C-alpha cells in the first residue's frame, strides 16, 4: 500500500475580506483512517473541506490529497475523492438510478463500468428498491443515501462528507452511521459534524476546530479520557442539608460543590473534583457510612459546549 498520507495539510489559510475562516491549520490523515471534524457552526469545517475538494482555493498554505496538490492538480485530486457537500445538493427532478449513472459518467467511468458500479452502490446504500423513483419525492434519509452513493460511485480513495447526518431523524441517523462505519473498512473517510456522539461512534480520530483553528487533535478514546478527567460528579442523596454540606467539605479532592434541594429529603449535589480524581467511590462511601439513601451517582459527560469552553480556556492559559 502507498505510504504517502491521504491528506497532508500545512499552514492552510482562507481569508475573506474582513474575516479569516480558516487560520493556518495543519494536519495529516493516514490511509484507512476515519477522521471526524468537530466544531460549532462557523468553525471553518465546510471551508476546509471545500478547499480539500479543490472547490475553493486557499489564501495561503498547501494541501495535498494522495500526494497531489489540491490547487495545482485539481483534476487528479477530484478523481480520487468522493465529496458530499453540505446539505447534500441533488438534481431533484432526476430518478435515483439515472442520477447516479449521470454522476458516474461525469466522473469519467465508461458506459459498462458505470452500470456495474451504479448497481453496486445502489445495493451498498440500500437504494435498490427506490432506484426508479424521482429523487425529489424521496425522504430525507433516502436522499442522504443517494448523496453517499454518489460519493462512492467512482471508488474514490478518500471520502469527504460534510455533515452527513444533519436534519435526519434518529432512525435515519443510525442507518447513515452504520453505512459510514461500513465504508471505513475500505476507504479513508473525513467527515464533519457538530454532534460529539457521532464522532465517538464513527471516527477513530478527531480534529476539533474552533474559529478556524484546530484546538485539539487526538484519538477519540484519548480525547474522551482527557476530557473526563475533571468531569463533575452528580449525586442525589437523602440527607439533611447541613449535615451533607459538612460531610462533603471533609472530602479531600473536591474543588467546589453545589447543592439543590429536591423532593422529600433528597439533595442534589454537583461536585467538581481536582483534575484527574474520580469522586464516585468517595461519595458512595460517604452515603454508606452515614446510612443515607443514595439514588443517583453519575459522572457528568462533557457536552460539546463544555469541551469548547474547556479547550479554549486551557489554550488561553497556555499562552
Amino acid at each position, binding site marked *: 500500500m502507498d505510504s504517502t498520507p491521504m491528506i497532508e495539510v500545512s499552514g492552510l489559510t482562507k481569508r475573506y475580506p474582513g474575516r479569516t475562516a480558516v487560520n493556518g491549520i495543519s494536519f495529516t490523515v493516514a490511509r484507512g483512517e476515519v477522521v471526524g471534524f468537530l466544531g460549532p457552526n462557523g468553525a471553518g469545517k465546510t471551508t476546509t473541506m471545500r478547499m480539500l475538494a479543490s472547490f475553493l482555493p486557499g489564501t495561503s498554505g498547501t494541501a495535498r490529497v494522495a500526494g497531489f496538490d489540491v490547487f495545482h492538480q485539481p483534476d487528479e485530486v477530484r478523481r480520487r475523492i468522493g465529496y458530499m*457537500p453540505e446539505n447534500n*445538493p441533488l438534481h431533484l427532478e432526476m430518478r435515483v438510478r439515472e442520477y447516479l449513472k449521470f454522476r458516474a459518467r461525469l466522473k469519467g467511468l465508461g458506459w459498462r463500468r458505470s452500470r456495474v458500479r451504479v448497481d453496486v452502490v445502489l445495493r451498498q446504500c440500500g437504494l435498490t428498491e427506490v432506484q426508479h423513483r424521482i429523487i425529489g419525492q424521496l425522504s430525507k434519509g433516502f436522499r442522504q443515501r443517494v448523496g453517499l452513493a454518489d460519493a462512492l460511485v467512482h471508488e474514490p480513495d478518500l471520502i469527504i462528507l460534510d455533515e452527513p447526518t444533519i436534519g435526519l431523524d434518529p432512525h435515519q441517523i443510525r442507518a447513515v452511521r452504520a453505512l459510514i462505519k461500513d465504508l471505513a473498512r475500505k476507504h479513508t473517510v473525513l467527515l464533519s459534524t457538530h454532534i460529539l456522539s457521532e464522532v465517538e461512534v464513527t471516527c477513530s480520530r478527531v480534529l476539533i476546530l474552533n474559529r478556524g483553528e484546530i484546538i485539539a487533535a487526538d484519538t477519540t478514546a484519548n480525547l474522551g479520557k482527557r476530557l473526563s478527567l475533571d468531569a463533575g460528579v452528580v449525586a442525589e442523596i437523602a440527607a439533611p442539608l447541613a449535615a451533607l454540606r459538612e460531610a462533603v467539605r471533609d472530602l479531600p479532592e473536591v474543588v467546589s460543590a453545589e447543592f439543590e434541594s429536591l423532593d422529600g429529603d433528597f439533595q442534589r449535589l454537583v461536585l467538581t473534583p481536582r483534575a484527574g480524581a474520580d469522586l464516585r467511590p468517595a461519595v458512595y462511601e460517604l452515603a454508606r457510612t452515614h446510612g443515607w439513601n443514595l439514588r443517583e451517582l453519575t459522572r457528568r459527560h462533557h457536552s460539546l459546549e463544555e469541551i469548547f469552553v474547556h479547550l479554549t480556556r486551557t489554550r488561553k492559559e497556555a499562552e
Partner: protein
Amino acid sequence: MTAFFTLVRRELGGAFKSLTGYVVVSAAMLLTGLSVMDLIVWLNHRPMDAPLSELFYASTYFWVILLVISPIITMRSFAAERASGTYESLMTAPVGDWEVVLAKFAGAFAFYLITWLPLLGVMAVLRRVTGEALLLDPRVTAVAFLGVALIGAVYMALGLFASALTRSQIIAAMLAFLMGIALWMLSIRPPAADGLQGPVGRALDHVSLVRQMEDFARGVIDSRHVVFCLSMTVLFLFLTQRVVEGRRWK
C-alpha cells in the same frame, strides 16, 4: 469527452424534464405560428415574389421571438445550479471549467435550435398546400437557418454569461434580456441618424445584427457576418469562463 457529452445530455434532458422546456417550445410555436399567419394575411393584400422564409426571418417577428425566448433558455444554466447547490457537486467532479461552460452552451444552443424547428415544418406544410415552389427555397432556407443558428449562438453565449453572474434565475433572465436588447438596438437607428456617415456609421453597419440577418434571409453568406457572430460567441463564452473561474476566488 465522456464528461462533456454526459453534461450536454443532462442539460437538454433537464430542460425537458421540467416544465420550462415545454413551455418555452410551446410559446415559441405559438409566436411563430401567429407571425406566419400575420404574414400570410398581409401577403394576401400585397403579393410579393420573395420566399416566405425571407419575409419571416428578415422581419421584426423573428427578432421579437428571439429576444424573448433566448433569456428564458439560458437563465437556468448556471443560476439554478448555484441556487440549488448542485454547482458544488458539479465543480468538484473531475471536469474542467471550459468543459462545463462549453457543455452548458451546447445544451442551450441545441435547445434553441429545437425551438425553431416547428417553423420549418409550418413552411413545408404551406408549400405543399399551395404548391408554390417559391415559398420555400431549400438553399435560401438553409442559409437563413444558418443565420438563425449563428445569431442564436451569440445570444446563447450572452445569456450564459448573464446566468453565470448570479444565483437568481430571474436576475439572469433580466440581465440577458437587457444585454440582448441593447445589442439588437445597435442596429436600429433613429431616422435622424440616417445621414450618419463616416467611421461611426460604418462601424454601426458592421455590428448591425438586423442587417446581417437580412442578408442571411436572402440566402447570402457574407463571411464578415459569420466571423462577427462567431467572435461575439467566443467572447461571451470566454467571459463566462472567466466568471466561473473567478467565482472560486471569493
